[in-house]
Each structure stands twice: as C-alpha cells, then as structure tokens.
C-alpha cells in the first residue's frame, strides 16, 4: 500500500533538526500559509477541511470541518490546540510537538485565519517541558519571521499565539476542563451545552482541536481535502499516528493509513509480541477503551466505525499490548487506579465510584477478594455507566468516570475465570 507520510516525512528527511524553522522553510514550510493568506478566503479553507473529512485525533473522532462549522459568530473567537496528551499509552502529540512544531504553528495560522481567530493558545501538559520548549522557540522564531503577530505578510491578518503549560491533571485534556484550566480555574469539565464552539474560552466561541488534527491542516490545504479523503478507509480517512506500547517487539509511534487490520498493526507494524509469546489482549485506543482479544478482534479494521461496532474505540490512537504472562486483574487495577487518581471530583459517581472500584480490585489482588465482589464490581460499574453498553451511558458530566468501567467489563467479559481464580485463592487458607 502506498501512502504519503503526512505528518512525519519531514522528520525522516531531517532526522536531526526537523524542528528548526530554517529546515522547515527549506522543505517548503509556511508556503501553504502564504498561499492561504494571499489567495484564499476563510470559507475556502473551511470547505477544504470539510471535504477532507478529517476526524479529530484527540479521542472523540468528531469531524473537524463540521465542528468548525458550529463556530458562533460572536467576537473575539479563540482557537485552542489541545496538547494535554495524558491518556495512558498515548505519546504521539509529543513527537509532533518536539519534532515538527512549525507544522503545528502553520496549521494554527491557517486554522485561525479560517476561523476568524486572532489569539490562539497551545495548551501543553506540564510534564512535557521539552515539547513546550520546542514549541515556544518555534513560536518565537515564527514571530521573528513575521509569520505571527500583527498584519502577517501584509495580509491584514493578526495572530498571537500563547503557549500554556498544564499543571499535572489528565482531565484537562477534556476540552472544557482545558478551557477552565486556561482561564486559571480548577480543571473541571463544564456542563454542556453550551459547547465551546458557542461559549468556550472566556465564554467566547472557541474551537478546540488536537495537536495532530491541526498538524494535518497544512497538508490538507496544500494537497486539497479530496486528496486527504482518498487516503485510508472510506469511513476513516487519512493517516494516523498510532502510539504502540506494551509487550511488542517494536513499540513506538507509527504513521499509517487508516483501515489496516489489527493483525497488521500489531504483527507487521509493531513487530509482533516480544519473545514471540502469545498475544493475550490489547487496548485499542487508550486507557479508556474496552479491550480487544485475539479470538475476536485481530481482523477488525482499524477505523472509527469498525472498532465501534466491535465494542470499543480508536480514542487517542494508543495501542497497549499485553502478552500471555500478563495478570489482567493487575492491569485493570492499574488503569482504574489511573482514573481514580485523575477524577476531578465533581461528579459523585466518578469521585466515589472509581476509588471504590480501585479498592476492590486491590483487595482481589491482595488475596482479600470475596465472591460477592464480582457482582459488586459490575454493579458499581453499572451505577457509573448504566447498562454497561458501548458507547457508554453516563451518570457523569464527562466520560472520565465511565472510562474506568472499560477495564473491568473487559476482564469480566474475556477473563472472568482469572478473576474467579483470585477470589478462590482468597477463600483458601493461606499456606505458610
């Protein structure tokens, strides 16, 4: 299969210094910006993004063009780039920020022009100082060249970009929590509606897009939306940066077109399982996603809809692979613990429920499980996410709480015997 490396080609061509503005410009960088500012209308840009049919790369896979169409007319408006990347297993935005910040900035300029934005923010998680340094330096370089600031290229278009560092809170990846955080508030998700496109940052119309989504914009405008839409599978187009981790021979980021099978992604791209062990299970889209197992899912296609039909999601593009040696209860505990730690605390079911789940799993792991715990775990999950369906119903404001349900339903569905074995072990008198 032949496909262009939309996001990472320049990194391959310039393995040492793809992040520098001279390298970027030398490879044709900022030409798309020039083309847009000198010859396109905002409407034309939006139309290209719509025809590209690019699904957001932050997790929810909402089509970016459609989201842009919701932007309310009030002024001022803001663009916020979501670089909070904290979903366990995910490290793709880090590479885009570190290795090609100008690609992102050019995307920001084009998107801001299209959206009528004069102040954009790039929110980067606090634990990413190096990516933030690279982006800050790139922003300063872009200002120095006149690509940012007042009257860019004499077009009359002004744009300021502020790089903002998070403080260590996964929930700030949720777009409204991110906006609160950017406003200097606690990073608690807001009630919706209103959605950010209507009332976002400072209650003004705001578009929030993922780093990868915006990094795709220069290529899309350069090559046309249709060229982008022609790559990959019909229901999920373009290439995507997947973060492969866990028990693989070749973990790391890969850019591949949408529409491979999981078998191809894990075995061909990821090199298969370390020490040639058996694949036991994998998390297809970041810690929030229900797990897949080889018996059922290896030949499912890696697209939004195919994965959804199989009961999970592509989410943030993080694939976490577990081999046969994995204690799945321990793995589930780790993931649930993450969500309990990251709950903002607003919603009762999330705050109390995730912690309770974590405690019960801990008991199971430590030989203090009870038979009733199995039903209890499922019932607590049901009280956080009624019906335990996919996509989840929620008793909460945002999907963080229901995310903690995924690993539990996963082990109960695919590895119930292992959970039962732990309970049985606890029932036996401890041997000396």
């Amino acid at each position, binding site marked *: 299969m032949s496909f262009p490396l939309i996001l990472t080609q320049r990194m391959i061509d310039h393995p040492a210094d793809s992040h520098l503005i001279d390298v970027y410009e030398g490879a044709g960088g900022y030409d798309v910006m020039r083309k847009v500012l000198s010859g396109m209308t905002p409407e034309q840009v939006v139309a290209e993004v719509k025809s590209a049919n690019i699904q957001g790369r932050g997790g929810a896979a909402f089509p970016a063009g459609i989201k842009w169409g919701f932007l309310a007319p009030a002024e001022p408006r803001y663009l916020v780039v979501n670089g909070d990347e904290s979903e366990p297993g995910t490290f793709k935005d880090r590479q885009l920020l570190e290795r090609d910040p100008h690609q992102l900035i050019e995307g920001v300029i084009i998107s801001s022009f299209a959206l009528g934005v004069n102040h954009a923010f790039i929110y980067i998680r606090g*634990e990413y100082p190096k990516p933030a340094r690279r982006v800050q330096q790139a922003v300063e370089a872009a200002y120095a060249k006149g690509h940012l600031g007042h009257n860019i290229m004499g077009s009359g278009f002004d744009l300021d970009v502020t790089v903002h560092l998070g403080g260590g809170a996964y929930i700030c990846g949720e777009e409204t929590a991110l906006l609160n955080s950017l406003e200097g508030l606690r990073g608690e998700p807001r009630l919706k509606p209103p959605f950010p496109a209507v009332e976002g940052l400072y209650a003004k119309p705001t578009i929030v897009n993922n780093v990868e989504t915006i990094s795709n914009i220069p290529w899309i405008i350069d090559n046309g939306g249709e060229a982008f839409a022609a790559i990959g599978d019909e229901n999920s187009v373009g290439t995507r940066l997947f973060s492969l981790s866990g028990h693989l021979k070749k973990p790391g980021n890969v850019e591949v077109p949408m529409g491979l099978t999981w078998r191809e992604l894990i075995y061909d791209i990821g090199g298969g399982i370390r020490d040639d062990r058996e694949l036991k299970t994998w998390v297809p889209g970041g810690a929030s996603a229900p797990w897949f197992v080889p018996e059922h899912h290896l030949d499912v296609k890696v697209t939004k809809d195919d994965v959804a039909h199989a009961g999970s999601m592509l989410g943030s593009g993080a694939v976490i692979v577990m081999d046969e040696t994995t204690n799945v209860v321990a793995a589930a505990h780790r993931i649930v613990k993450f969500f309990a730690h990251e709950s903002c605390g607003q919603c009762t079911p999330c705050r109390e429920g995730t912690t309770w789940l974590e405690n019960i799993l801990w008991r199971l792991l430590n030989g203090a499980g009870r038979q009733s715990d199995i039903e209890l775990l499922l019932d607590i999950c049901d009280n956080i996410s009624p019906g335990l369906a996919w996509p989840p119903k929620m008793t909460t404001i945002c999907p963080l709480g229901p995310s903690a349900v995924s690993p539990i339903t996963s082990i109960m569905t695919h590895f119930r015997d292992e959970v039962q074995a732990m309970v049985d072990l606890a029932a036996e008198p401890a041997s000396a």
Partner: protein
Amino acid sequence: MTLAAVIPDWTSPNQERARKLLDAYPERRSAVMPLLYLAQLEHGHLTDSGMTQVAELTGLTPAQVQAVASFYTMYKRDHVGKYLISVCTSISCFLMGSDEVLTAVEEESDALDGTTSADGTFSVEHVECIGACGGAPAVQVNYELIEGVTPEKGKALCQWLRDAAPEVVLTDEMQELFGGVRSFDWGSKEAEGAVAPVPAFGPYGSAKREGRS
C-alpha cells in the same frame, strides 16, 4: 500597588516574566498557573506566601489560588529535593516493569515514594502516564525525561545525580547515560534543561548548560 512591591523577593528576571505573563492572556486570571510555577521556582515549593503573592497579582483571593494550585499535581505544597524523580507506574510502564524501577530508585535515593531524602537531594514520586509509553518504563528528573529505564539504570541515575550533582539536568544527557528504548527518534540534542523541580519551560525554570551548543 506595583508588581515589584507584590513580589519584592522574586529575582528580577522572574519579576519580568511575571509581568509578561500577566500580559499574555486576555484576562489576568489566566496567568495564575504560570505564576504559580514561578512562585514555586522562587521558593523551592509552593508556600502560602507564594500563593498569596499570586493572588495579589491576579486579583484573586488566596483561597481561590489554593483551590487551583491544589488541583494539579505539579504544584508542590511541601519541600521538594534538589532532584524530583518521577517514576511512571501507569499501565504501559507497569507492563514493562516500572514497579521494580520505582523500588530501585527508592532504595538508591533513600527516599520512599512520596517523600524527600534526609539530605534533601531527592524527592521520589510515582506518577501517572507521562507520555513515554513506547519507551517504557519511563522516569523523569525534574520533569526531564528518560525512556527505557531498567532498575539497574535507575540506581545508576541516582548515584550519578548525587555524585555529579548537575546544576542543570538535561534530558538528552540522561537518556544517553541511563536510558534505553525510545518512543521515537529524538533528533538533535537540546542544550536546555531544568534548574529546579519545576517544568523547565522557557518562561519558568530552564537554563542552558554552559559550554554546550
């Protein structure tokens, strides 16, 4: 009141940074998080007086500032050692043996998870995913990343920090000495690194190591 009168104890570069931060956002309140990092950089950890200063700068009450600061894990309310070692124990690192790395770091640093060593050199913490899962297990020193750390390398890292006592910690240097598998090709080396246990981002606690490019 002038800005300098609110933060007379801050260094003049940090006063200047504070001034710029207050201008960088459409509303002053938005500067609260970056200002908290500066306060933490100034005082070693986030003190009550640091929060009160940030409150005055942003027009909030100290209670509001505390509400924000306490929401985030990177604002440290207690004393932090010279090197803050953060060991990721989230799922991907866990699968690759992070718990053993944490134990090794605890042993060598003389600081249990969540504490600071008696000599004030190290603070150790386990943290949730730090975005280095392709290079698991991952560790940060003053938020500067090292990927592919083994228990042995974790110990060696602590020894090195104690003996070499670098004023500036550089991610590339540590990766080379103590790291392994990376999430992706890192490209050329950076001369910048952290001078204190706060994120070494341009406006906060970063510095260039002398004598390097």
